[in-house]
Each structure stands twice: as structure tokens, then as C-alpha cells.
């Protein structure tokens, strides 16, 4: 399964310390995100990704090892991002 950024979204980021805030111009919603969720969402800019591709990219981006702990955190992050309407299945 692959995901992509909701095409109607328009993301604007701010970061203070290790907390990220993103404003979605498409929905008018503002979201608070932890570093893993923020890193995951940023990978989808202009591309579709499978979970494995996302895991590799986030691990490289955050300079950490791609392990089960990160995979678990990313799985939760993707679920949240889909729930917020920021990501959607790329099949449709």
C-alpha cells in the first residue's frame, strides 16, 4: 500500500524546540506534531511512498537506525495523518 499527500492540502511549518506545528491551508486546521510524525509527513512532499520507503527515508532524515521501534512509531504516525486528512491512499 502506498500513501500520498492530500492534493488539496497546503502545509506551512513552524518548529520550536522539538515540537512542530503545521497549518494546512486546505482545511484551515492547525496540528501539533512530534518529530517522528512531522518527519513522516515531510517525506510525502510531491511523491507517493510505501511504508518501507517511508521508513527508510525517515530513518535517514533523522539519522537513526531503521528498527522495529521506529517502524511502530511511524505506523502510528501514518494512521494519525490519514485520520487528519493529510495523507490518503495513493491507489484511489
Amino acid at each position: 500500500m502506498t500513501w500520498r499527500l492530500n492534493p488539496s492540502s497546503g502545509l506551512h511549518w513552524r518548529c520550536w524546540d522539538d515540537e512542530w506545528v503545521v497549518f494546512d491551508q486546505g482545511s484551515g486546521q492547525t496540528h501539533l506534531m512530534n518529530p517522528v510524525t512531522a518527519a513522516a509527513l515531510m517525506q510525502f512532499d510531491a511523491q507517493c511512498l510505501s511504508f518501507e520507503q517511508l521508513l527508510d527515508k525517515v530513518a535517514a532524515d533523522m539519522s537513526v537506525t531503521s528498527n522495529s521501534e521506529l517502524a511502530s512509531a511511524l505506523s502510528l504516525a501514518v494512521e494519525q495523518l490519514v485520520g487528519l486528512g493529510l495523507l490518503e491512499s495513493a491507489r484511489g
Partner: protein
Amino acid sequence: MTLSELAQAELRTRLRGVGLKLACGPFNYRIRSPIGAIADGLRLLYADYRIPAESEFIDFTVNIERSGGLRRFWRPQVKFAYDGTYPFVPMQLDHAFPLLEWAMNWCISSQADHFLMLHSAVIERNGGAVIMPAPPGSGKSTLCAGLVCRGWRLLSDELALLSFTDGWITPLARPISLKNESLDVIRKFSPDAVLNQVTHHTTKGSVSHMKVPTAHLARVAQRARPRWVIFPKYVPGANARLTPRSKAQSLLSLGGNSFNYGVLGLKGFEQLSELVSQCDCYDFEYSQLEQAVAVFDALAQELVA
């Protein structure tokens, strides 16, 4: 010319007829009402406010009317009319003055989208403004009134008006709304404070309004730069204590407390981001006003140092 320069009879004539014009910060009101308590409350609390010249633009016309029909005789009611609409449900007649205050707030909060508007008290000392957003019951207005009684300049007890150009805050300097236990707290804390007569059994309980010190009104044109965002909370028995709060959490809370963040889109997000970036953000617990004033005074002293 200020309202205090109007004779009592002239004040009532204007209220019953063409309307009393009144300048409050950047806005000009026209107030119409035949109700005596409105005239009395205005004379007490708004004596030092400027009456705009005939040629000046009026932003809002507020009509506080008696309800008609059988309501004139049986449990008489009062209602707020605006531009041919009735934004609030009618209230009992003796709630007329609080209704006027709430109506004046509503005019701004529902229409002044050329500001980013936060539901918040704002005070200033030594050139630095404190924004105090908080939900009802948090002790925000009590704390605001206490600080104003100890020399902090009042910009607003209800509405922070942030400029989109430079982020500075425009004062409103309208009377401070107090309710229930806060009334006695402020009377004891500052016996010189001038409060309007108490209105009981409103939707907020027993309410009154505290007059703004004349010296603060003299500076109503002086905007202030935001320096702190402080979320106050009255906690019985607690020692006054500031705790740093994350800027990201503060931004979300401020957005939730805003009257128009949701309609401003990216412009609102950028303005709010700028605000939290330039301010120190805190949670604040307190139970004693004297302690709270000492903590806030120490903050203001940082600017002098």
C-alpha cells in the same frame, strides 16, 4: 469632549434620541437606550471616555431596547438590537447594563477582522504587554483587575487586538468585568476601585464592572508590544508560580481562544506564530493577588534591567 462634560439630562436625551457617541480605543460606538440603568452605568464607568466629533465615522450602533407586547407589563425584558437583528436572547430588564457591555464586546469580536482577536486580558508595564488568555472561571479578570489596581496599564480585560502589520496590541481600555466571588476579592484588595452596581442572577451569576483608571484612558492611543503570553489559573491555596509553557502548545491554545483565527487562514497562523516566537510563554497558578502582583512585577522589572 468627554462624557463627564455632558449634563445628566443631555446624556439621557441623546440615549433616547439620536444616540450617545462614545470612543473606545480604535472604535466609535453609537448607543441608544431609554433605560435608566444604562445612563447611570455609562455616567459612572465611562465618564472619562471621549465623545467623537459629529464628522467621525461610527463603527457600531448598539440599541438596548425594552421588549414590547405583554413583556412591557409582565416580567419586563431588555434586548440588544443591531442592524435589524437580535444577536442575543432577551434578558430580564435589570440586566440591561451587563447586556450593553456584552453587546459592545460582540460588535468587535464578530466584525473587527482587521485585527487578530484573542479572547484574552492584556496589561502592560515598562513597555512590555502580557497577554492572558484563559477560559471562564480561570481567574483571568480578577487577576487583571488586581494588576491594574497595582499600576499595570489596562489594554483590555477581554479582547487582545493584534496588528497584522507589526504585531503590536491596540488598547480598548473598557471596564473590567467581574463576577461572583471576584467582586469581594477586588473590593478588599483595592477599596478605591470603582465598581458599578451589582447585577444578580445573570447567566454568569452576579456581575459588575470596574472603572478604568483615568490615567490609563489618557494613554489609550499608545499601543504596546507583546512580551509575554501567560495562561493564568486560580488554584485555591496555591503559591503564585510561573511554569514555562511550550510555544507550540501556546500557539494551539491561543488559536483556540481566538475569535477569528479560524476565518483568517494562513494570515492568522503567521501572525500567531510571530507572536509566540517573540514572547516568553508561561502557565501561572495563583491564589493570592498580592503574591501574583509580586511575580508579575518581577517580570516587568526584567525590562528595566
